[in-house]
């Protein structure tokens, strides 16, 4: 594997790690991927760009408090189609994102949501460890649906029926 491919393979895993922690980690776990002087710009939000790991951790803490597990759950940012530009110690990357989850509206109604968007990162290698120097998250649009039900496969019943036959 060529050195650039190794860096990209490693960064892909780090990008994935950062989004898993963004979705389900503690504020400290979500913030640990950012460099001390990092910048996070959630363009979809009106809070503006966040400067520094401390402020980023505070933003994740606020977000988790505002959307508790009873109000929003199954939150997943799907990272698709990553693009990389290697520039020495820095790597620029851009990802398509598809965010999904469920939320409880103020009237109590449960809705599913899907949000296509994209993320632009700059990663920096600090003492051999890759950290996010800047991340911009943009939302293209969102759509909401009611959750539907799925019919059971009935595999267990078929297994039990099979046992009874013998």
């Amino acid at each position, binding site marked *: *594997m060529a050195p650039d*491919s*190794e860096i990209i*393979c*490693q960064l892909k*895993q780090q990008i*994935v*790690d950062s*989004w*898993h922690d963004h979705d389900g980690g503690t504020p400290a776990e979500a913030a640990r991927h950012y460099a001390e002087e990092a910048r996070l710009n959630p363009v979809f939000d009106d809070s503006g760009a966040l400067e520094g790991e401390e402020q980023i951790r505070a933003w994740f803490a606020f977000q988790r408090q505002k959307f508790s597990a009873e109000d929003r759950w*199954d939150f*997943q*940012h*799907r*990272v*698709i189609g990553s693009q990389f530009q290697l520039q020495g110690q820095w790597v620029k990357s851009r990802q398509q994102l*598809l965010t*999904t*989850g*469920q939320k409880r509206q103020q009237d109590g109604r449960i809705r*599913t949501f*899907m949000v296509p968007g994209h993320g632009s990162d700059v990663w920096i290698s600090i003492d051999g460890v890759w950290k996010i120097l800047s991340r911009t998250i943009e939302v293209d649009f969102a759509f909401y*649906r*009611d*959750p*539907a*039900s*799925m019919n*059971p*496969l*009935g*595999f*267990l019943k*078929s297994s039990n029926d099979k046992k009874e036959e013998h």
Partner: protein
Amino acid sequence: MDTARAQDVCDIEHLLTEYCHRVDRGSAAEVAELFTEDATLVPEFDGDYEVKGDSEIQRFFDHYHTHFRANVRHLQHMTTTSRIQVSAGVASAHSYLLATFVDGESGAAMTVTGTYIDALKKEGQDWKFLRRAIRVHFVTSNIEVVEQLEPMGFDPEAGPEGKN
């Protein structure tokens, strides 16, 4: 990440993708080949049970193909955002699942989201599932389905300037 570990991560990503293609279009035996002989499948979306051993796993996918896949069209499983950790011939993966299909009976387009939680084992040169748990988060339906897109109207005979 050293070269060998990077290669393992690539190989595991390939396994996760291969599973999707085989579940969508392959035979039950082809899906079961991706599991170790002593593997466990935990289809949490279908109840509280475990399917143990590759021959039972093959029977499960045979049941899945007969009772589910045969009743839908355009089935696509997609695995993304796989968090993979490798350590001396074993690995774990935590991936986001997205599946889409058209329900054969109602004609509704369905979307399923969920999570795959995997333990993996390297047998020879091949990574296989030692344990796979499938968790569905939600299912949504959309009644407005277009299965055949309206053609764009491009005329290949028109030439570069749009003239014949």
